[in-house]
């Protein structure tokens, strides 16, 4: 290589480096331009109010992040339906205390990182400081760490993990659905009625599955039953063959199954193919057997027990209006997912009314000693750990004319929250 060529070479590489560095700065400059543009746009949008005193009120913006793929996508759609019915009801009356309800949707694939990204976008770019429709407990736990920085509150209507009101509790998160331990405590009360003596546990392999299994094991052993097998299958498992074969050889006479959404469908369908359920005196599902799955599962599940979060036939005005409005908008009766989500909305709306504002900090403060009418007919309060003190039911699948797939739940027992959740977890340090 001649001297001239090597000099040229060096010039080229330094030039290349400089132009590349410039490019990098340009990119971030481009982002900056986008950044400030967007900011000013949203700024002016919220600034333009109208003349009348009532509609001067800022809208109540709620950011919803349901999963749109994976085994739980079907529940995500139904969560949205619950929020929509609540929003439509409120807006038909001029909004919550005059604040028009605005639902803004973002999707996620269920990974905590994607959900946090979506929440950040909703809270910072779109001013939606109230988050809802986040499906799983790990997502909720991960988001809880970001809530203070975002200045947002999370309304959880599906994540049942006990950690969310235990070690992962957050003063910015509130839960309308009853937790795993609460439901299992309700089941424990009926344990004596369930005929099986030795139990096998099949649960989904993340926090909620583990907490449900642990709570059930404690309750069963207290009632003198024996657990002979516990196994976990990852979420989105589609082939349960080896799990089912293992269950068959364990020869228990009761099965406690915690498989959600599409996993629940696969498990029940494949279990029937292996003739698994023939050997059990009791099959107790946990959030597994539910109305939307009745059509797909059919007669296979008659006689199964399950925790029932919501009694669609509850005889009170609030529930009857909810069922009527839901049916009108969606063509089917609601079940626990939209019902729990509707309650999350009711809790938020009640707090906004009490606070007289849509400022998240004021709403948060209003949660203390807040009393909200529940779909079960009574009024409920929100515990200091953010848990809504709602009752838990146990039900059995029976033939029901007119129900989805010709099936419905018969409520076997109901236990109030004062019994299922008598005190705040010692792990929760807020």
């Amino acid at each position, binding site marked *: 290589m001649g001297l001239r060529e090597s000099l040229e070479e060096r010039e080229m590489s330094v030039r290349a480096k400089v132009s590349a560095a410039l490019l990098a700065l340009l990119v971030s400059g481009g982002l900056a331009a986008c950044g400030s543009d967007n900011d000013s746009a949203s700024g002016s949008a919220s600034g333009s109010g109208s003349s009348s005193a009532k509609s001067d009120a800022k809208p109540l913006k709620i950011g919803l992040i349901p999963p749109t793929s994976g085994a739980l996508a079907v529940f995500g759609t139904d969560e949205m339906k619950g929020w929509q019915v609540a929003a439509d009801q409120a807006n038909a009356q001029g909004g919550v205390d005059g604040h028009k309800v605005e639902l803004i949707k973002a999707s996620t694939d269920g990974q905590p990182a994607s959900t946090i990204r979506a929440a950040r976008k909703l809270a910072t770019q779109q001013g939606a400081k109230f988050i809802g429709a986040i499906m799983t407990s790990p997502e909720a736990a991960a988001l809880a760490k970001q809530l203070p920085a975002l200045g947002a509150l999370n309304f959880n209507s599906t994540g049942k993990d006990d950690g969310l009101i235990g070690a992962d509790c957050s003063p910015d998160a509130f839960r309308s659905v009853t937790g795993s331990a609460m439901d299992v405590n309700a089941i424990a009360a009926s344990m004596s009625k369930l005929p099986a003596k030795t139990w096998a546990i099949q649960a989904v392999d993340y926090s909620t599955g583990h907490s449900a299994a642990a709570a059930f094991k404690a309750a069963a052993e207290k009632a003198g039953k024996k657990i002979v097998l516990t196994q976990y299958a990852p979420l989105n498992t589609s082939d349960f063959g*080896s799990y089912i074969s293992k269950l068959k050889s364990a020869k228990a006479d009761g099965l406690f199954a915690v498989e959600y959404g599409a996993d629940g469908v696969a498990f029940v369908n494949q279990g029937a193919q292996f003739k698994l359920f023939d050997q059990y005196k009791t099959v107790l599902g946990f959030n597994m057997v539910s109305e939307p799955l009745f059509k797909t599962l059919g007669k296979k599940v008659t006689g199964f027990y399950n925790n029932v979060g919501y009694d669609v036939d509850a005889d009170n005005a609030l529930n009857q209006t909810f069922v009527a409005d839901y049916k009108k908008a969606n063509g089917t009766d609601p079940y626990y997912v939209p019902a729990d989500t509707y309650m999350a909305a009711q809790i938020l709306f009640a707090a906004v009314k009490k606070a007289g504002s849509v400022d998240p900090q004021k709403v948060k403060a209003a949660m203390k000693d807040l009393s909200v009418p529940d779909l079960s007919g009574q009024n409920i309060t929100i515990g200091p750990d953010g848990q809504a003190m709602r009752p838990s039911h146990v039900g059995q699948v029976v033939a029901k004319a007119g129900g989805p797939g010709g099936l419905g739940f018969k409520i076997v027992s109901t236990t109030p929250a004062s019994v299922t959740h008598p005190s705040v977890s010692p792990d929760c340090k807020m």
Partner: protein
Amino acid sequence: MNFAQVLNGLALGALLMILSSGLALIYGLRGVMNFSHGALYMLGAYLAYEATSSGLSFWLALILAPLGLAVVGAMLELGFFRNLQQRSHIETGLVTFGIALVLNRLIIIVWGDDTHPVSAPKAIDGTTSVFGTAYPTYRLLIIGAAAVMAVALVLWLRNSRVGLHIRAASHDTETSGILGINVDRVSLIVVCLGAALAGLAGVLAAPYFSVSPGMGQSILITVLIVVVVGGIGSVGGAMIAALLLGLVQIMGNVWLPSVAVLVPYALLIAVLLWRPTGIAGKRV
């Protein structure tokens, strides 16, 4: 030892066998690891879902989907593999990776994000008693179909003229070309066949696994491992490796669940480090 568990292992191995044969064929001839094989499999499964939900017979889907996939394979060969022959194998592999991403997304755009169960035809949706244990009939079909396909494929490769050309071209493309074999035509046949096999595996998998957006990606790594462990481009080796892996994975789940999930990786690492030619070496 539960006989049902052995059958579970065979069923998974059977599915992997069909899928990996196709990949091994393409790899053997073109030298390219087709990263879009998982997406092809997924397309086959979604086509089966489409067929059964529109009321067509599952058996019809079993024939039509592989044909459709063969067409896609032809597009891959004519559009990409042929034009990228001058490039390094890794570059072409990266292109197939990109194709996988695009195809994955296109499938979701058309059919949506949900997980859909697909029911097997009524005739075989039940339970059969095998040596005293109740076992889903459909899984037995998968094992049977794979066995038939394996025998047919091996016999065809061994005994037919085209099979001879394929084996020759896989062994040494340059010399085969000199000896008068139309390597391009053979390539087309191989890629179409490979894609069709992926489609067949997808159709068979639909009632077994359900169709879901992640199914292509989740099976891709396993099938890559099978092909590498089986031996570069060796179809017979891939078949043996597929059965082995299926059995080991399921039975490992029974005895040592903690370790079972690591076995495929351990196997791959061991093979690549100590016997890079795989189980079968260079024999096709």
